């Protein structure tokens, strides 16, 4: 296993996170690698930016230090062997009699790997070389408890490590530039564990209706009274109440704003599609958003996965790939300064169980998407599905620590070199999929 033994060899020049590089970096914003702007179908992107007067400048925005990060957590243990089937691995199809993606169904990536047919929208991004696939990734010593694994990964630590804060929070607290111009945003209801800690954050369903449900005439008085009632003592709930009032004011200018995706992007009519549009909107409004998270649930498919043609897995992958594909199209040139990373708590058993499903496994696939990603390539070491190469429980190993993937993005795209603070007691290895910004 290749865990922490290798030295920290991630020091790719130009991505050291030195504050002095900030100005240079700002100049590069909007400049795209490989002529993203000129790419077919994206040429009209600039016209669709949110240029409504009074909207763009409504926030006390500053320029982001690095890329805007969108972290998508696939909850339940996504079956990476369905999303990116190793069609060229002789150990694959035989162990999955009803659920395997066949060579003819797969969208071929290279000699070993393909995409599930419903991943077609992401195949286009792969072909544009803006999507990297990291195989056999995960926590090398991983637990198979959903709850433990999700918690550890969002904190950015090994399972037993007792660190209170989340890795995204530590990115902001450790870097020289400090807090982002705009709070980190999670679409949903709960504060994601990755945001836990002192950096500011907003959790919301939608920016356009984030307001108190009171008559407009009394709104200011109600807000003031709520603030007063949560003053004079210290507690986490009191602090949270004040942050909520701050968020209401911060988002006041987004009220009733409707949204038209650009470049003909069509988001799936799902919670995930809606949440992605919320993020796309904020990015286009140039408020200074630097980190966002959202969840896509429902991957714990112990039974009734269906076939590559139809059923639970096909539907989920369609939502996933269709959503991220639309996000990519919608953002157009802004993808040059946006990085999306996906993660899941663990992969699933190589062998199908007796219920047309799979149980909790180990190694999994991660995706990184963006203009700053050296895509169209598979990263990580594929240990193969040969019996001798599997882990103790007979599952795919995790040969790349998930923190290697996150750390490379933090260093190269978010311009923070203080990785030992973001990922305490871990020395990440460079994978090379992210260009220095």
């Amino acid at each position, binding site marked *: 296993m290749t865990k922490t033994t290798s030295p920290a060899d991630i020091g790719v020049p130009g991505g050291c996170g030195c504050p002095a590089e900030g100005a240079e970096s700002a100049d590069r914003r909007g400049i795209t690698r490989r002529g993203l702007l000129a790419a077919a179908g994206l040429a009209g992107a600039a016209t669709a930016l949110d240029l409504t007067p009074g909207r763009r400048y409504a926030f006390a925005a500053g320029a982001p230090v690095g890329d805007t990060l969108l972290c998508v957590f696939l909850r*339940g243990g996504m079956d990476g062997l369905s999303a990116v089937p190793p069609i060229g691995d002789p150990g694959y199809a035989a162990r999955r009699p009803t659920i395997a993606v066949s060579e003819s169904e797969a969208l071929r990536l290279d000699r070993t790997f393909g995409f599930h047919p419903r991943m077609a929208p992401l195949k286009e991004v792969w072909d544009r070389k803006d999507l990297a696939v990291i195989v056999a990734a995960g926590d090398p010593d991983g637990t*198979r*408890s*959903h*709850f*433990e694994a999700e*918690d550890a990964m969002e*904190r950015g630590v090994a399972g037993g490590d*007792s*660190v*209170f*804060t989340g890795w995204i929070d530590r990115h902001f*607290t*450790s870097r020289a530039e400090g807090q982002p111009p705009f709070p980190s945003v999670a679409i*949903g*209801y*709960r*504060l994601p*564990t990755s945001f*836990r800690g*002192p950096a500011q954050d907003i*959790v*919301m*369903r939608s920016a356009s209706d*984030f307001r*108190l*449900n009171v008559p407009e005439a*009394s709104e200011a008085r*109600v807000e*003031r*009274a*709520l603030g*007063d*009632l*949560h*003053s*004079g*003592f*210290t*507690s*986490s*709930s*009191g*602090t*949270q109440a004040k*942050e*909520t009032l701050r968020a*209401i004011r911060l988002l006041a200018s987004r009220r009733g704003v409707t949204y038209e995706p650009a470049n003909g992007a069509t988001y799936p009519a799902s919670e995930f599609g809606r949440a992605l549009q919320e993020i796309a909107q904020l990015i286009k409004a140039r408020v200074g958003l630097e980190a966002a998270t959202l969840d896509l649930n*429902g991957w714990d498919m*112990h*039974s009734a996965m269906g076939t590559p043609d139809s059923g639970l897995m096909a539907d989920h992958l369609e939502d996933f790939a269709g959503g991220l594909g639309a996000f990519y199209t919608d953002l157009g040139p802004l993808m040059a300064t946006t990085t999306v990373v996906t993660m899941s708590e663990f992969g699933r058993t190589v062998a199908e*169980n*007796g*219920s047309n*499903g799979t*149980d*909790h496994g180990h190694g999994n696939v991660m995706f990184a998407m963006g203009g700053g990603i050296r895509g169209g390539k598979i990263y990580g070491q594929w240990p193969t599905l040969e019996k001798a190469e599997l882990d103790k*429980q007979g599952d795919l190993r995790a040969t790349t620590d998930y923190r290697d993937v996150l750390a490379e993005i933090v260093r190269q795209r978010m311009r923070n070199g203080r990785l030992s*603070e973001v990922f*305490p007691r871990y020395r990440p290895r460079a994978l090379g999929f992210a260009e220095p910004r």
Partner: protein
Amino acid sequence: MSEPVTGAPVVGRRQVLQVAGAAAVVATGRTALAAPAPAPAGVARAKGLPLSRDPALHVARRLTFGPTPKLLARIRELGMSRWVEEQLDPDSIDDRTTDLYAAVPSVGDAPHVPFVRFDLGSLEAARSRTVIRQLFSEKQLYEVMVEFWANHFSIYGNHVLAGSYRNEDDLTVARPHALGSFRAMLHASARSPSMLFYLDQWLSDGKNPNENYARELLELHTLGVDGGYSEKDMSQAALALTGWTVDTGRGTFLYRPQSHYVGPLRVLGWRSANSTPQGGLEVGASLLDYLARHASTARFVATKLCRRFVSDRPPASLVASTAKVYLASDTAIKPVLRHIFASRAFRDSVGLKYRRPMELVGYSVRALGFEPRPQLAYDKARTLNNHLETLGQAPFNWPPPDGYPDVAEDWLSTAANLARWNFLQQLSRGQIGGLGAPDYAALVGTPAPATAGDLVDRLVSRLTFQQVAAAHRAALLRYLELSAEAKVDANAVRTHAPALAALILSSPYVGVR
């Protein structure tokens, strides 16, 4: 004014970090149970908030969905321990009014054959009964415990197969056993079609076991993730339970010998020769007995109960002594509860818990003096359940099997806060379907208040059962843009009370308990 909350130096989530830096040793999250690290005693504690330490009020805040004047009078009349005993004997309590309103039939038009169609009536009946009883039942501690166990053996009601049987699960697992024996409840849960569908156990067979149920049985229902078992123990447990399935024609538990794995088994200290297909029912039952009586289960269940009733991070000594009582009483639940309620840690825990959404709704509906009405029964409490969904804690609506979290930080977010405030605005204005409007004239009493200060004081006292800090009283008057001495007329209650009530219920005197 009551004396201020004092005690161990406790700080908020954000302060913790400033004190301890990045290496702060507070593991949290939905897996807080798994956290091995020591932690401050109560992240939720509001330092400097003058929360009343009146023992009767403390008991009412923690052991019920919310105090009412009648409930507080009863606690004072009986004294705490006799009141607890009364609550621990729910059959002795007359609850006919609630029974009437909570009796929503399971529609009756859907046969319990899951493949025909999803029986929404079953889920609706369970949700309606749950909410109406939580709000209005006289058996408050019983309802608190029913919710606790329903959450311990959590099943997502919208699961396409499990949902059709969610009502039956409620009637056969949590409700009959909430104050009985944990061991009996575990057996009932392991035979509940809803659970067997939810965690795929119905599909498991000896040739090709499905591990979903066995894993959660060990991790979430009994030993806990730190309970000392291995992956091997887990897969052995899965084999032990093969054959435990559902008769899908009848919708009842079925043991199917031909699906049972045969051969020696071992889970921690439990062994079975497991030599015949016919013996699998007994083998599984003996494993459940072993798990229910295991020291790790005792610790796990004790931790969760102490977390519910005492603090988010209960003292280790209380957890240990509670686990002992659990084992000594052969998993009986009542002695365990008596032990926790009589503890010094419980007595001293004022202000250490945050009110989760369901508990906030319960508190507010009860404090505002709502009574069950026919409209609520017609509505089957759907409107309230929809609001609870927005608030993030509708009954049986948590998708993963670990149940709603029970520590404050899992409920603190801008989205959660805004949803709470907006619900309270609607509730106070009488805009929640099925409930009607609060009778503010009755709440503030007669004669009607003559000054703004009097109006504020009476509403505060009626809705928080205590007085609040002078600055907070001033904040409410400032909202009215009136001085305390300002004269108010008879219309003032109608004009001002709804908005004031929403603010008072949004205040930390309700949110923190």
